């Protein structure tokens, strides 16, 4: 058998393999590059960038839960300007696709961010975060409202010809309605899922374990939910999906591809094993070899129901 083809095409976005690093779980790439070869993976989704820098929420920001964790980072980030000046130079040197994730509290801010960042050649695509559960403005007010998601997609579409991926909230009964509106308004793909709203309390102080009271649940605990959301979209809307949620190893990645994900993102797992993305790429190859799969893209949505 000749070399296995791991490339994936999502609209006009070409990835050398389906393994991406999820927004907010790799910063801007520098630190994790000490542990893993970023040139080997399909791409990096940068930490959500907002127009102005954000300090983020006060501590305590995270807590471990059964097979998961809650975070309420609150979109701490350096802001568009510093991002361009200080972070892009490192990212530019990589032989991996750079997807820039954008968060905002107003429609105008989304538009402005995309307009500015559209000039950066090293940015190949945008992921629009409409689903952060940890900020007061925007976040789930947008993400759980199909009209807002449509409007945001439509507006950023006008600003760029680069691929637009909209990152959906799982905190809704029918995620496929959101995927549909993204498609209708010219989005190229959706990513699913962002975190689920959760909380944890200390039974002696009776205080929330994270200062923000609620946080976003990620990790293996949410994998079954994420898989069901991806499958729901795949079965009802014809739009490429990037699968996210609790992926810890190559088996989880394959499971997401089978239910319909064209590519996958690794989030929480990076914290535990910062080299996991490279191991997943190897695992995908081995799996394809053992299953006689020539093009990994043939796995996408290949479920047997």
């Amino acid at each position, binding site marked *: 058998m000749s070399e296995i083809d791991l490339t994936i095409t999502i609209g006009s976005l070409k990835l050398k393999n389906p393994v991406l690093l999820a927004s*907010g*779980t*790799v*910063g801007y790439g520098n*630190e*994790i590059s*000490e*542990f893993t070869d970023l040139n080997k993976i399909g791409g990096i989704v940068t*930490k959500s960038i907002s127009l102005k820098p954000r*300090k*983020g929420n*006060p*501590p*305590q*920001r*995270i*807590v*471990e839960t059964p*097979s*998961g*964790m809650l*975070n309420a*980072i609150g979109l*701490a980030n350096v802001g568009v300007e510093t991002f361009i000046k200080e972070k892009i130079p490192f990212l530019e040197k990589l032989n991996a696709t750079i997807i820039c994730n954008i968060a905002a509290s107003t429609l105008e801010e989304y538009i402005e961010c995309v307009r500015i960042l559209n000039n950066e050649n090293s940015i190949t695509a945008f992921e629009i975060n409409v689903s952060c559960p940890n900020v007061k403005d925007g976040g789930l007010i947008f993400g759980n409202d199909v009209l807002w998601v449509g409007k945001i997609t439509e507006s950023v579409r006008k600003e760029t010809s680069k691929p637009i991926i909209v990152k959906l909230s799982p905190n809704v009964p029918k995620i496929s309605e959101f995927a549909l509106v993204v498609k209708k308004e010219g989005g190229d793909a959706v990513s699913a899922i962002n975190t689920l709203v959760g909380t944890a309390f200390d039974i002696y102080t009776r205080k929330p374990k994270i200062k923000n009271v609620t946080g976003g649940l990620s*990790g*293996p605990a949410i994998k079954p939910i994420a898989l069901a959301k991806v499958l729901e979209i795949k079965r009802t809307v014809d739009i490429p999906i990037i699968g996210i949620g609790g992926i*810890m190893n190559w088996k989880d990645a394959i499971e997401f591809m089978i239910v319909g994900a064209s590519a996958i993102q690794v989030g*929480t797992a*990076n*914290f*535990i*094993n*910062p*080299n996991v993305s490279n191991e997943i790429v190897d695992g995908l190859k081995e799996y394809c070899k053992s299953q006689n799969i020539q093009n990994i893209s043939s796995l996408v949505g290949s479920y047997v129901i």
Partner: protein
Amino acid sequence: MIIEKCIVQSIEKVKSNIFLLKVLSPNISTKGKAGQFCNIKVSENDFPLLRRPFSIHYIENESIYFLFDVHGEGTNLLSQKKIGDIVDIIGPLGNGFNINEDFETAVLVAGGIGVAPFPLLTKSMVNKSIITFYGARNSEYIYDKNLLNINYSTDDGSIGLKGNVIDLLKINLKNLDKQKIKIFGCGPSPMLKALQIFANENNIKCELALESVMACGFGICQGCPIETVDNNYKLICKDGPVFDAKEIIL
């Protein structure tokens, strides 16, 4: 920063609830400095999910020691390791203590298991004089190997002064020239806070080793902020865990 699979060379309960773990770590051991820490995967499976951070307690040849308290599920699992087990460790993480500053006497102030980083710090400062103040619940919680000139305090008075370590420090520091010392503190937050106030009020050089719940331990999750006096956040894992007492708001 390295991910290393380390073999457990020994593990023993050195005191009520306190364990000493020795692992063979040819790579991390050559780089680790006092005040830095490692993030340890305490199990071979996904439970518990996150690594657990521990100070580098001591380094000897190619071995690293960790001194830890059994606290919850994670430390419980770690305490059950056996000789020959493989433990997955990321380190060395963060910045260590700054011992190159201009001071004559290092004043080490430890609260409880906060003593963990001090043996390596003691070993690192060959050309300084060292005084150690060590406070704990009672004598059953004291493990003082590889420390120098130790003064004790315990809540119950079972050894040393009956009282807290800050009281102990205040009593004993009177005789020293405050310009020529540097305090190194590690322990529970209330103790660090008291120490910070004391050091800053008396204008004594002081570094504090902080703790925070951590997801990654090396700067990618932003889970471990500490507020600075200039109204910003720094990351305890990456910018710390050691901070100048003048720099942070506890």
